[in-house]
């Protein structure tokens, strides 16, 4: 791995002036540490995707492009212009007003002009003009058109894997131009000529085969959950025995694999288990549909559909009434905006009703899948939970809105409501960095990979900077989030920029606060850290770990 | 013409700079056209038979005044200048909006501060006609924010009705109450409109202009003509003028001289 500069040095480097050269004349920097590793052959083959035919590196001078690659891209572009009005309209109407320029975390963190959303789109737009518009064909360069060359492909590979599809720019664009759409299209085009990154397609291949990104096989899945149940028993004295692949359960619960694989997601998993036990929910977990996330979203619409199909297939097979989904970001973008369209209609399911409160989740009437934050917020509102928020008194919490839940569905108040009910110390980050203006963790859309650590730290700077602010001001020591990618990507980010702040899922906080029937007196939280009697309020910078 | 042309060129120049080169070429052609004298209108002149003075002034011989003469003067002035008669049109309650250029008042009103416990006989009944004093140092001109009220070289304090914004600062500044404001459209209350003189629009201030429009064509002010000799009009700077002779021969007073405005209207009591 390439060395990363120290935070103090890195932050100074972000304030670089724009280059004097036009972006068209600056080749993409594909030196080690600046690119994601390309997909291994076997994953591409397993998914029946075009392959370059050999292992290669983006640092290579010569890329393994198929002979007719220009034609493939041209035809693919044409097809997508017809299939996606978003693409066509966004190609045509940008006025380059510049409102998006400094809204991108990668631009703020790198100062690289091609990370301005407008320029990122121009990378594609210049080819669009050349190939599909009269003005571009006649006026060429003057109209902002350019020919498709291998250098352009390299540029695409570099910069469309420097976009986390967070859609923050789209909030500020007067026409709602969504760079996520553009990046998705560009990645589809790149995939057509066999160019993709391993950190996306290996999980996708895993998911296709085993049901989850991490390739966890059914028995291992069960073992892991059992292991967490042991931990829960140790902390609370309660033994939980969740069911797997159980037919006839009322609810199928699906959460991203990060929640049962890695720290700190696993504590969130424990939170779910405690909650379901607490309210006596009739639910089951599935080993087949054991992944909430969907790395297809970072590849192509077809791949989204292929991976997502398992949810409805499994729900139908098990005969559940509806599906409950765990805390995750891009998972929810897919479920909220794509699933029903792609794999619906789910007429074999019932419109979701909370078995505990009787609340009808009308906003999920067609998709029949409810977000656990909606579910839990409803439980708390109806006073169905016994909560002791003081158990979280050793934590001073702030909340990071995931890009997808905030800008892809608008799930803003539910998590805040839950946090405020299970914690006594909650502070918001500055207004321009939360809710629909939230900043990405810097590692979304398949970029949570080690080889580009510097880029991730740069991209995560705006988020980390806002956390640092509340850390310094209010002594915040815990960053709550409702996204599995966040739970994986924020710890290294915090570790780098704000080392005293930990990361948690919201349901870990719920799990800590729940007063279970017949539990032993808790002396530690789910992480086996002792519960502090004294409140750390005002103890600046005191961390909980 | 010279002045306005210069102004025009200035504006044109600025516009060329501002409008970018798209208009540059056209601008140049305009400029050259202007310089070559394509724009006609060689010059403006004073009318040859205009009455001229260095400082116009008026003497009021109250001895010769009667209510009838005062009435006649007012009528002839108001008629000539299209001054509306709101009271006649709308009734007494419109008195507060009254517009007057010249009017008759009592001695104690015209000459406040000269109250006398034992006045000369008949002084209280003495008709005094008051109008704008065309002060040498007019506070109204000082106060006006747009130069809508200004003093001409010949001493006449003039109103430019096109420029007046109706702030009424001049009314507050005038220590003689000589100014009136058009609180409403005057036209309905103008009887026998004189087409040779403009009416005013609502919202501007007006007052006596010493009949500048008549002086320009060699005529004396209307009130002077109607005064049957009670008013004498002339150049205060010309020692040979009738008015100077009259002032030299009689003891005259002026209204509120202590305010230092130096009125150009003199009264023989």
């Amino acid at each position, binding site marked *: 791995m390439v060395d990363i500069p120290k935070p103090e040095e890195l932050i100074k480097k972000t304030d670089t002036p724009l280059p004097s050269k036009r972006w068209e004349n600056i080749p993409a920097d594909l030196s080690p540490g600046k690119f994601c590793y390309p997909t291994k052959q076997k994953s591409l083959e397993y998914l029946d995707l075009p392959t370059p035919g050999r292992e290669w590196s983006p640092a290579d001078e010569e890329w393994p492009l198929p002979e007719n690659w220009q034609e493939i891209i041209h035809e693919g572009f044409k097809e997508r212009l017809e299939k996606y009005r978003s693409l066509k309209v966004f190609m045509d109407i940008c006025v380059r007003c510049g409102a998006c320029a400094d809204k991108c975390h990668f631009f703020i963190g790198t100062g690289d002009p091609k990370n301005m959303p407008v320029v990122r789109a121009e990378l594609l737009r210049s080819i669009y003009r050349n190939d599909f518009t009269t003005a571009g064909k006649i006026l060429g360069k003057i109209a902002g058109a350019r020919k498709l060359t291998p250098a352009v492909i390299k540029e695409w590979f570099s910069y469309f894997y420097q976009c986390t599809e967070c859609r923050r720019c789209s909030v500020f664009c007067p026409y709602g131009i969504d760079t996520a759409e553009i990046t998705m299209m560009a990645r589809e085009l790149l995939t057509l000529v066999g160019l993709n990154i391993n950190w996306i397609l290996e999980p996708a291949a895993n998911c296709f085969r085993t049901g989850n990104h991490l390739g966890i096989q059914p028995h291992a899945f069960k073992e892991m959950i059992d292991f967490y149940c042991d931990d829960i028993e140790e902390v609370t004295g309660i033994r939980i025995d969740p069911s797997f692949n159980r037919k006839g359960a009322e609810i199928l619960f699906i959460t991203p694999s990060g929640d049962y694989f890695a720290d700190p997601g696993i504590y969130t998993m424990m939170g779910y288990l405690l909650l379901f036990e607490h309210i006596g929910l009739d639910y089951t977990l599935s080993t087949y549909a054991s992944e909430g996330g969907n790395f297809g979203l970072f590849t192509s619409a077809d791949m989204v559909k292929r991976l997502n199909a398992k949810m409805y297939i499994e729900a139908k097979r098990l005969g559940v009434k509806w599906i409950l989904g765990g805390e995750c970001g891009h998972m929810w973008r897919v479920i909220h905006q794509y699933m029903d369209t792609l794999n619906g209609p789910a007429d074999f399911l019932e419109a979701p009703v909370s078995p505990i409160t009787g609340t009808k989740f009308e906003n999920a009437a067609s998709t029949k899948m409810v977000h656990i934050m909606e579910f839990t917020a409803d439980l708390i509102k109806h006073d169905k939970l016994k909560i002791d928020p003081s158990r979280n008194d050793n934590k001073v919490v702030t909340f990071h809105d995931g890009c997808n839940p905030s800008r892809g569905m608008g799930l803003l108040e539910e998590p805040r409501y839950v946090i405020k009910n299970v914690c006594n110390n909650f502070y918001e980050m500055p207004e321009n960095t939360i809710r629909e203006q939230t900043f990405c963790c810097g590692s979304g859309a398949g970029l949570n990979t080690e080889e580009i650590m510097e880029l991730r730290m740069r991209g995560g700077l705006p988020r980390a900077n806002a956390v640092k602010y509340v850390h310094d001001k209010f002594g915040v020591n815990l960053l709550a989030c409702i996204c599995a990618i966040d739970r994986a990507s924020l710890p290294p980010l915090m570790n780098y920029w704000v080392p005293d702040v930990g990361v948690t899922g919201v349901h870990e906080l719920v799990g800590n606060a729940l007063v279970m029937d017949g539990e032993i007196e808790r002396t530690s939280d789910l992480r086996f850290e002792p519960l502090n009697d004294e409140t750390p309020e005002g103890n600046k910078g005191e961390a909980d770990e | 013409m010279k002045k306005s042309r210069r102004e025009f060129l200035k504006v044109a120049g600025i516009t060329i700079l501002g409008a970018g080169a798209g208009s540059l070429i056209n601008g140049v052609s305009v400029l050259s056209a202007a310089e070559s004298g394509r724009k006609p209108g060689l010059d403006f002149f004073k009318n040859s038979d205009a009455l001229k003075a260095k400082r116009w002034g008026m003497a009021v011989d109250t001895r010769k005044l009667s209510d009838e003469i005062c009435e006649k003067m007012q009528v002839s002035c108001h008629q000539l200048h299209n001054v509306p008669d709101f009271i006649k049109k709308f009734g007494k309650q419109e008195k507060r909006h009254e*517009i007057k250029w010249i009017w008759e008042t009592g001695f104690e009103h015209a000459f406040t501060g000269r109250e006398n416990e034992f006045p000369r006989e008949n002084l209280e009944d003495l008709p005094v006609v008051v109008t704008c004093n065309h002060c040498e140092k007019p506070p109204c001109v000082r106060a006006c924010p747009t130069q809508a009220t200004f003093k001409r070289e010949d001493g006449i304090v003039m109103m430019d009705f096109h420029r007046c914004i109706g702030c009424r600062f001049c009314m507050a500044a005038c220590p003689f109450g000589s100014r009136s404001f058009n609180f409403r459209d005057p036209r309905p209350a103008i009887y026998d409109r004189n087409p040779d003189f403009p009416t005013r629009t609502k919202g501007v201030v007006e007052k006596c202009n010493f009949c500048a429009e008549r002086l320009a064509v060699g005529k004396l002010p209307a009130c002077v003509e109607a005064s049957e000799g009670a008013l004498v009009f002339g150049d205060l700077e010309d020692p040979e003028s009738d008015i100077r002779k009259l002032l030299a021969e009689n003891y005259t007073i002026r209204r509120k001289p202590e305010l230092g405005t130096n009125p150009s209207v003199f009264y023989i009591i």
Partner: protein
Amino acid sequence: MLEKAIKGSKTYWLWVLALLAVIAVGFMFYMRQLDFGLGITGMSRDVSWGFYIDQFTFLVGVAAGGVMVAIPHYLHDYKAFGKITVLAEFLAVSAVMMCMFFIVVDLGQPMRLLNVLLHPTPHSMLFWDMIVLSGYLFLNIVIGWNVLDAERNSVPPPQWVKPLIYLSIPWAISIHTVTAFLYCGLPGRTAWLTAILAPKFLAGAFAAGPAFLILLCLVVRKFTNFKIGQAQIQALAKIVCYAAITDLFFFLCEVFVAIYSQIPEHLEHLEYLFFGLHGHGALVPFMWLSILLIVSGILLLLIPSARENESVLAVACVAVFMGIWLDKGLGMIAGGFIPNPLNEITEYVPTMPEVMITIGIYASGLLILTILYKVVIGVKEELAGT
């Protein structure tokens, strides 16, 4: 930041709508005034300025009063006021805006307003008034906005704001001075023809402005999470008290000069206002009420236990504010015009349309104030992390 003004509770929107409704009514009356002319007001040939100019004069004072927060904070580093300077600045913004509206509605030919700029006339005080007022508006918007934005981002305000802040202090004094000069330089209007007019205006301003600010602080504290402390309010209350005393003192000086010298021209205006002249005395009760309010306000503010009780404080502030309003916003102009230069009396009573237009402008000022304060409070709440 203006974002915060478009997100609010039902009460907030109801309040905004109510203000908009009042503004709409006022605007309708203004349309009528535009159509008919200023004749629909109570003004006359003799009392050629009235309610509008009264309000203008009074509100210039309210705007200038903000400097009583700025001076201790910026010149003497009185930290407590740091919390509320922006409130004072935005109060000034709304007050100056109202002043401008009042000037515009008072014009006979508002469409020719720009003549003041097209034909600049340095010897006219109104020209200078326009400059100082628009300058003050600009200064307060720029300063208030940048300081607030910086506070919101927890960074120091931009360097260039500092000189503007220092400039704004004498500028605040200047707006009310120039406003006084509008009147006190006019020969023949003896009620105004006094060198003490500018100081007296300022004294009244420093009482009325902070008094209103105290009331606003109390309202803000009651209805929002922006908790303004005891320290700021008490310090303001003392300022109000001594400024009101100074105002009263200046007034008594005027009274002495008039009464002791017995010069009729000086006496008559006071006589008209407080006792009536030749049987005319429409303003007499209001003038006495004004004195009563100011005196009682001062007394309440002087007694520490009364001042420290916030209900009493509120009453005292209302008393001072209303007292000075009656004095400046009602008596000042009419008192100057009555009797007229020919020693005749035409009384002045504002008419219904005139009052409605005035209320409409006050509503628009309140709307501006509401929006600006909503932003301030939003920022303060955001900073509290809630």
